[in-house]
């Protein structure tokens, strides 16, 4: 796997606030990586440093073999920044043309390239409008379109679907899925289902340092794990009965939603254990609302961040 982005011991502080504290990781070619962490973990700062918007206090960053401020990187990274306004009083089309021209396209080729990204991101109805007249969701799609100009090798998406209505969010997710084939993507999002669906790798950071980097697959234990949502909070007697099952090794109730149980078990025949657990719940009149095999990805990420 060729390394496209490599960060080593990156530190960045804003006054007394330390945004990045010795962050190190590497991202390979044609990966789609989810960048996850609580608010203030340093995700946006990391994106800003990768794109050369700010300099790290110390540490090394290498993108496509170059430093973030290298001239040789220009046009090879696209970014959908979070909540950044476009120039006011200038139509979307004019601004996209400007950005394409800055990227080195001639006047004619810029026009054709803009047509391509407009089609790809479905913003043809918006291009003759001023950015300040667009809704938040429309603006986001326009800004996503600018990130695609020139088919950059690496695309960074900072909260690509936050603030979007469900339909628009789905459109954006579908577009991200399409982009995976041709680009290396790094997607920062609080929506872990989105990360799970879109990415094949995850980087979890907290307080500016790496908590874990692994494949999504590694985080999800498929065989010996059940996640069950009950209609009511289970009684203590129900939990005791479940714990008494010989195969069950651990039962955890969700801290926020006590109706949600994570059950870990062992044994060579998981289907039988699963059947036995459901049978026991029925005996205790504990109605099951949702049931899934494997640990919930979200739970695992939360557990990792909390344990950091």
């Amino acid at each position, binding site marked *: 796997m060729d390394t496209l982005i490599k960060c080593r011991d990156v530190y960045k502080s804003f006054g007394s606030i330390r945004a990045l504290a010795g962050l190190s990781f590497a991202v390979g070619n044609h990966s789609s990586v989810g960048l996850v962490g609580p608010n203030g973990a340093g995700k946006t700062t990391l994106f800003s440093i990768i*794109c050369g*918007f700010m300099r790290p206090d110390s540490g090394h960053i290498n993108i496509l073999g170059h430093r973030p*401020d290298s001239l040789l990187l220009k*046009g090879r990274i696209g970014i959908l920044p979070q909540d950044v*306004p*476009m120039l006011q009083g200038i139509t979307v089309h004019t601004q996209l043309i400007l950005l394409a021209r*800055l990227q080195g396209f001639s006047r004619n080729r810029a026009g054709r390239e803009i047509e391509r990204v407009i089609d790809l991101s479905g913003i043809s109805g918006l291009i003759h409008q001023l950015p300040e007249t667009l809704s938040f969701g429309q603006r986001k799609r326009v800004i996503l379109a600018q990130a695609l100009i020139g088919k950059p090798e690496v695309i960074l998406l900072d909260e690509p679907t936050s603030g979007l209505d469900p339909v628009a969010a789905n459109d954006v997710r579908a577009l991200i899925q399409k982009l995976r084939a041709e680009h290396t993507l790094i997607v920062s999002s609080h929506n872990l289902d989105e990360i799970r669906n879109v990415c094949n790798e995850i980087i979890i950071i907290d307080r500016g340092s790496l908590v874990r980097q692994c494949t999504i697959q590694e985080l999800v234990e498929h065989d010996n794990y059940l996640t069950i949502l009950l209609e009511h909070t289970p009684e203590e007697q129900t939990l005791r009965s479940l714990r008494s099952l010989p195969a069950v090794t651990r039962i955890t109730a969700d801290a926020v939603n006590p109706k949600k149980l994570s059950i870990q078990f062992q044994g060579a025949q998981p289907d039988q254990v699963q059947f036995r657990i459901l049978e026991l719940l029925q005996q205790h009149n504990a109605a099951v609302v949702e049931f899934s095999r494997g640990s919930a990805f979200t739970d695992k990420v939360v557990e990792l961040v909390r344990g950091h």
Partner: protein
Amino acid sequence: MILAFFDLRHALFRLKGLLFLLPFVFFWYWIFKFLYVQGGDLLVSRVSVQLLSWLYKPAVAQILLISHPASLSVFLIIALATTPLFAMLGSCDQLAGDAARQTFRFFLTRCTRTEIFLGRFIASYILVATATILSAIAATIISVHIDQRPMEVTLIYAMQVVLMTLMYVLPFVGYMAAISALMSSALSTLLMGMMAYLALSITGSYLGHRLGMDVALVPGGVKELLFGINPHDQLYAGIELLAYAAVYTSLGWFLFRRRNI
């Protein structure tokens, strides 16, 4: 250059362009109206020469009002006196607003900070310079009508006047680039630019008084050399203005390169 031309094209329709152009046009309209109606003999009178001698050396006043076409000289004096204000108005939003709003993030993945800095600097300079050239053309037309000097003399002096004013504008645009690289809005850049200019002028005078020598931290002191008793002084003034421009612009570039965007 793409960014510079884009900025220039849109300067007329954006607040930052209008903030400069409207006061500039109204001011010069008023001055030219006064010159056209009240100028002529009044400008070359002994009283006018005496009045100007209070501001500059008598020899300089004599050259400006008697040796050269007087209305063009009046234009030059007023243009140089108002350049700090108009150059500040015309170039106060080079970097500050878009850096603070983070709009430059769309540019920075496509071009370097140096290109953005130079693009904005060139656009601001061309905007102020174009307005200055147009006002100088208007002053030349008035001079042809009221100064009764040979056309050739008026045109040659007009070109000198244009060159002097354009040279004088340059350090002020550079100065505002430096202030703009630090601030977070056009308005705060303008206010800080004015206050810092005043502070630098006072500090320069104070230091000059204490040290018993000329200490010029702002280019205001170059004006009298520009008016030109001899070509050597004008050349010296030109070099000094370029030095000011280089120092201010380099400082702005240094600050902008390190700024978080």
